[in-house]
């Protein structure tokens, strides 16, 4: 009998502790729902606006309390898709993204601060083997897991464009990257 009581008590205590932890612990680890997410970019070619997207990438977001604390993005560069096979194949060559040598681009935040409209992830972005400090602004809604934002990068900062491709009159230097991601909380 004593044994049973003590077992029940300890079970209750464990349950209470778990419940309490659940209530406080807004700490969460979000991962990407790829099917509901888009990662796109816009660039100028011959004076006209052109668009493309990536189809394979991984995103994780840690949330501590109610604030995002760590953002990590890995993009498979071979999944770039501008809607034209010849152009995609060209983009993968050594003078541009050099995908065989640098198959992934990687962003990892070192600090995330709150801004007027959302958050600013300061961190290191590596493309084509070149790492630079960037600010990645975004909004995040824990309720529906949507992470949205846009950042403009300069391709030549990362050496994307060697030889003739260094010229920016036909293929612009600025590339606007737009992310509309759907994240799901794991643990």
């Amino acid at each position, binding site marked *: 009998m004593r044994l049973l009581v003590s077992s029940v008590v300890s079970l209750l205590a464990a349950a209470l502790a778990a419940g309490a932890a659940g209530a406080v612990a807004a700490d969460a680890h979000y991962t990407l729902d790829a099917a509901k997410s888009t990662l796109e970019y816009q660039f100028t*070619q*011959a*004076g*006209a*606006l*052109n668009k493309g997207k990536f189809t394979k990438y991984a995103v994780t977001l840690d949330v501590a309390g109610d604030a995002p604390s760590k953002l990590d993005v890995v993009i498979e560069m071979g999944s770039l898709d*501008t*809607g*034209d096979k*010849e152009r995609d194949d*060209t983009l993968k060559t050594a003078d541009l993204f050099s995908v065989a040598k640098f198959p992934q681009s990687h962003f990892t935040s070192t600090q995330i601060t709150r801004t007027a409209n959302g958050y600013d992830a300061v961190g290191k972005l590596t493309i084509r083997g070149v790492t630079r400090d960037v600010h990645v602004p975004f909004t995040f809604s824990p309720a529906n897991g949507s992470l949205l934002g846009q950042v403009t990068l300069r391709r030549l900062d990362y050496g994307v464009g060697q030889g*003739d*491709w260094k*010229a920016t*009159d*036909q*293929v612009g230097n600025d590339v606007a990257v737009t992310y509309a991601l759907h994240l799901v909380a794991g643990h």
Partner: protein
Amino acid sequence: MSIRNTPTRWGHIAQSLHWLIVILIIIQVILATIADDLPIGPKKIEVYAWHKSVGITILSLAVLRLLWRWANPTPELPSTLKPYERMLAKVTHFGLYLLLFAQPLTGWMMTSARGFPVSWFGFLQLPDFVPKNQALYNAMKETHDTLALALYVIVFLHVAAALKHHFFLKDDVLRRMLPFTKRKSE
């Protein structure tokens, strides 16, 4: 010579449009030939961009030219021409006008179907003529290339006829489209 056409002579505007389009078509052939031969790179993109911009310019000038033709008298063909020669002249001229529209339009459809939007000399991005469609691109490329050959044939006939009128028939059919010339009777 007047700004407008007369029943016997092309006016300044009609002549300017004719010769400007001649120059632009020659430029188009040169640009297309250069671009086709270039390896993939910014230069190729640039030369095609020029080709597209000049093409859109020709399309606009062709519209102006047709409107101007409708708003003016068309100089008459010499009365000495036989009926089949009149017919041949009409068919050739109709073919030339048709190509002035068909070539730019098939080019525009081709680039839109490929998914490459066009900017007119970097000033103005044109709307996509058709949605992206690989099969349509292939068909339009084929058509654009074939019409280019048709254009060479019809231009050859047109030039040959003009020279025949000038050197053999010794009438003023060529002269009345030339600036800085006088009609025999003037």
